[in-house]
């Protein structure tokens, strides 16, 4: 029995912004994000949402305007994708270091060139070190629920950092599936108005974010670092509170399925984790001990929880839809980092693929399972494999970082 309405993740996010009673939305259109701001513009035009909606002249200005609005104490929201996110980069750092609790939906899309509008995670991962918290949605319902949770996390006095809610381009943004839109009264019980800030109080003037000397500069970075670590606690608390109120598990740091007794555990971000879940259920039905970890919070990265979850596994297959050139899969690197010094830990295999809309589907996942099996049986296997990549004419494959 399914409740809710069929809608895309972009609509779900727009409903979330409306339910959160966002005061200011400043944005610039880009595929596949456009449907979010079109929906918000329509809500505002129909008088269903009170927000000030401003379509600005660039993404750099979109985030800048959102930061300024948030600095003046209101609840502010924006959304973007890919090139737009990259164009925001300077202001991405600014938003986090200015400690404004903005929420932004990032509809994940490949980065040009060559030009490609379909999904992967290179855009989000390239903003990894800006100081934003990053959540990843597996489903359209998550996109709505995580956006609501994101405001509560961002505005928590222990955190006060911007949150990016990632939803995969097209796979989620343009797919219609059932989504439950909660009643405003229920949302109001979950999400209180934003706590007041006095940064721009004309009665008590002060200058915010000015020049400081080396002695002081690192202190602000240290406070920011601690806030991002505290978010580990807050995200879990907020996820639990949400689950209690709405009877849905769509938050927290990691979502584990069939992990406790698994020999092989897949680790992935976003909608790929959903596909892997379906494969895990199929594999389980034929007796394979396979599990999956969906990383819902990429930043802060729940390293201790990840290490604990993987302690019993023999092989972890970490799926990256982004790459750090000259190094490796970013998520794989972080999983390995989490396992450092742990006595009980699996072999980590880095699976790379699903770029620019290429599938992370049954074909790729079956191959990955064979690879994990081979590793488990002690056969020599590459530690990194690119999926969907053709061989060179001389037969070499681009797979191997040995």
């Amino acid at each position, binding site marked *: 029995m399914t409740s809710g309405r069929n809608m895309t993740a972009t609509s779900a996010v727009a409903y979330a912004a409306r339910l959160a009673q966002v005061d200011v939305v*400043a944005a610039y259109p880009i595929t596949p994000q456009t449907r979010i701001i079109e929906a918000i513009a329509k809500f505002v035009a129909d008088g269903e949402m009170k927000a000030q909606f401003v379509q600005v002249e660039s993404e750099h200005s979109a985030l800048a*305007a959102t930061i300024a*609005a948030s*600095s003046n104490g209101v609840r502010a929201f924006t959304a973007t994708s890919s090139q737009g996110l990259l164009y925001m980069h300077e202001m991405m750092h600014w938003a986090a270091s200015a400690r404004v609790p903005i929420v932004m939906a990032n509809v994940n899309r490949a980065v040009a060139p060559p030009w490609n509008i379909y999904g992967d995670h290179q855009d989000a991962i390239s903003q990894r070190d800006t100081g934003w918290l990053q959540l990843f949605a597996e489903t359209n319902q998550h996109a709505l629920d995580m956006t609501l949770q994101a405001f509560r996390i961002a505005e928590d006095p222990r955190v006060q950092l911007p949150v990016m809610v990632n939803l995969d381009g097209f796979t989620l943004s343009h797919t219609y599936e059932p989504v439950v839109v909660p009643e405003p009264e229920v949302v109001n019980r979950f999400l209180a108005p934003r706590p007041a800030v006095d940064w*721009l109080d*004309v009665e008590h003037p*002060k*200058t915010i974010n*000015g*020049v400081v000397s080396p002695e002081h500069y690192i202190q602000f970075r240290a406070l920011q670092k601690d806030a991002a670590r505290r978010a580990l606690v807050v995200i879990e608390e907020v996820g639990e509170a949400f689950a209690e109120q709405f009877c849905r598990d769509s938050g927290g740091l990691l979502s584990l399925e069939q992990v406790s007794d698994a020999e092989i555990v897949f680790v992935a971000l976003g909608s790929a984790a959903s596909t892997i879940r379906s494969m895990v259920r199929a594999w389980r039905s034929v007796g394979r001990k396979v599990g999956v970890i969906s990383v819902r919070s990429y930043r802060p990265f729940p390293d201790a929880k990840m290490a604990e979850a993987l302690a019993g596994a023999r092989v972890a297959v970490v799926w990256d839809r982004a790459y750090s050139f000259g190094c490796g899969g970013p998520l794989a690197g972080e999983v390995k980092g989490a396992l450092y010094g742990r006595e009980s830990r699996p072999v980590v295999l880095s699976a790379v693929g699903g770029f620019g809309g290429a599938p992370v589907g049954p074909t790729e996942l079956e191959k990955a399972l064979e690879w994990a099996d081979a590793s488990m049986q002690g056969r020599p296997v590459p530690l990194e494999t690119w999926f969907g990549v053709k061989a060179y004419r001389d037969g070499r494959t681009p797979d191997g970082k040995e």
Partner: protein
Amino acid sequence: MARNETPLVMPGNSSCAGCGAVLIARLVTEAIGPNQIMVIPACCMGAVATSFPKATFNVPVLRTAFASTASFLTGLEASAKAKGQEVTLVGFAGDGATVDIGLAALSGAIERGHSFVYICYDNEGYMNTGFQRSGSTPRGAQTSTTPGGALGRYKAEPRKDIAKIVAAHGIPYLATASPAYPADLTRKVERAVAVKGPTFLHIMSPCPLGWGFPSANSVELARTAVESGLWKLYELDHGVLRLSLSPKKRKPVKEFFAPQSRFAHLSDDVYEELQRAVDEEWTTIEKEGFSLRCETSRA
């Protein structure tokens, strides 16, 4: 209003002796009064705004990145509307942050019609970082990136006229001003505050270090620029263009250029050419009236 007893720009700040920009900042801030929020990007006044933990301005200041003055004003205006807050929003930016890196944001914010007062204090280059050329550096100037050198590579191009660019947006109110004419400047700031929608003030800001003249001459040099006819004081108020001042007997332009080391290489031939250009312009103004038509070539 007890706060008015204390200055709105605090003394003992880190501005250079004789700084034109901080003088403009003081005149502008005092003209607007305490009910304002200032946005200052990377620029000289951005550096002067704080000596942490002390602030120079006795009004709220939100510092921003180089390109983002107008987009911050956009966001502040939206938030003020959302809160029902009545406050004057002021952008205070140098020429680099306005005519170069911040131009797209400025253009967008004016086009969208947000209410703000945007002040461009124009010291004709990137003075905070050691006098590099900007799009507002006049032709012929020596800067650290147009150093002249053995090949005589000074700034070869005329400055872009930001006021005309802004005027082309159909902005409700636009004015030029000079720290040598404080009453005129103050009146224009007050008018800008009263006008609904975007307003823009372009103010000449002499820089003793960057331009190379004694700090005592900042105001005098700004006055000479007006009296020689080089820096025109005017305003464009809802489509009505008016010169604020027509120097009756114009000073030779050489009196503006010669005291500045950045123009030390100019020969008398060049001065004659510059003089001729200014004379022609004013002859046209006297004959046909003042307009914002685009000259093909400017000094």
